């Protein structure tokens, strides 16, 4: 048994027009809840499909539950619950028929769980899938993925179309029935407050590359935003620097550890340190993946909001 539920080394998926996954080194510990973050088109969906063996990698390697994605993808699919971004299933089948169709593929399938989720999610079980709303389609996808007794759940945007009550219910189910049982959950999401509550690890993806992979607790405890003013700041090539942004005479540095020492160096260069403050996930994400608005004429002399 390896310690990691998912690990990849230099994983690549190159399409003619785009390098969707571009040298990814992912490490998802067993039993962790891993929030997989990134802007639209960052490569999250392609990564998830590649890990499942649904898309062939162009280069690199990856192991899921200790299995090789190039050779063992059937075994991976058997042990992994997957909710796709598109939430597409056979259109003409009802939820009840989909359950009958799916259960045979999964040796650890639980009818009791399927029944429990059908009730909790209030799913219309006898309507053909094509007649269901996006929310109900999402719920059917969850019912199927969560009932199969999987060791790993890969959930691509799992809350799309769900109302706040159902989102909350899904979180409760994930914790109660899956995380508490030591299963691994990786989910992509744009809802940072959800991720911040439930995730233990986060990975931030941009243009197919992982910009940051860290324990959320480490971000809260050790990451600090250092805000300084000063005219001629050298860009520091410090190993603990995550990003640096500059707007007029102010600079913001995100450092991953030893913030006080870092600030002391800046003071040594003649800068005035205005603030050293903890950061939340949103600030880290926007700092790494966010765009800055172009400077508008007439705004000279004011401080631009940093994305």
């Amino acid at each position, binding site marked *: 048994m390896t310690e990691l539920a998912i690990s990849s080394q230099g994983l690549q998926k190159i399409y003619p027009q785009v390098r969707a996954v571009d040298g990814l080194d992912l490490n998802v510990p067993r039993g962790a809840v891993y929030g997989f973050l990134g802007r639209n088109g960052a490569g999250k969906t392609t990564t998830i499909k590649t890990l499942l063996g649904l898309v062939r990698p162009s280069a690199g390697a990856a192991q899921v539950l200790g299995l090789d994605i190039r050779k063992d993808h059937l075994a991976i699919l058997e042990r992994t619950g997957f909710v796709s971004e598109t939430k597409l299933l056979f259109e003409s089948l009802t939820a009840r028929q989909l359950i009958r169709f799916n259960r045979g593929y999964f040796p650890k399938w639980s009818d009791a769980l399927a029944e429990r989720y059908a009730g909790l999610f209030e799913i219309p079980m006898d309507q053909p899938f094509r007649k269901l709303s996006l929310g109900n389609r999402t719920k059917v996808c969850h019912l199927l993925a969560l009932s199969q007794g999987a060791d790993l759940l890969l959930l691509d945007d799992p809350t799309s179309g769900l109302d706040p009550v159902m989102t909350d219910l899904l979180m409760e189910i994930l914790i109660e029935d899956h995380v508490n049982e030591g299963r691994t959950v990786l989910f992509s999401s744009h809802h940072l407050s959800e991720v911040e509550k439930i995730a233990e690890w986060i990975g931030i993806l941009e243009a197919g590359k992982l910009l940051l992979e860290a324990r959320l607790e480490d971000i809260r405890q050790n990451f600090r935003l250092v805000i300084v003013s000063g005219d001629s700041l050298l860009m520091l090539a410090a190993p603990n620097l995550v990003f640096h942004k500059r707007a007029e005479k102010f600079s913001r540095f995100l450092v991953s550890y030893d913030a006080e020492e870092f600030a002391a160096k800046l003071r040594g260069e003649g800068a005035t340190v205005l603030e050293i403050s903890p950061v*939340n996930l949103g600030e880290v994400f926007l700092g790494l993946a966010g765009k800055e608005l172009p400077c508008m004429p007439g705004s000279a002399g004011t401080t631009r909001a940093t994305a």
Partner: protein
Amino acid sequence: MLFHVNTSSGVPVYLQIEGQVKHAVAAGALKQGDVLLSVRKLAAELRVNPNTVARAYQNLESHGVIRAVPGGGTYVADCQPGLLKSEKVRRLRPLARQLAVEGAQLRLAPEEVVKLLEDEMNGLGGRR
């Protein structure tokens, strides 16, 4: 339901849980010997990672607020333990400093800040 968490507050979730347990004990809402929800139950109830709750419980236990019986649940411990006075003061000092800074910022007189603190202490009621 006694506890709640707010992820946008910037306060780490485990500290929020710690703070709420301490507050409930100080206010007498939780009494010595009361049973706390298990880590798994509270995690599911709050929709937070079980490790987060486990961490809060560990800290509360090391501060002597709660007591975990292996395999037998978690209870509110008997009174504040035999902490040295100097240790109690050390733990409280950062909060006192913050209060002083905020008070000065708002141009409140020291007596007004102290009065505020007294009101809050009185508001706790319960055992002290």
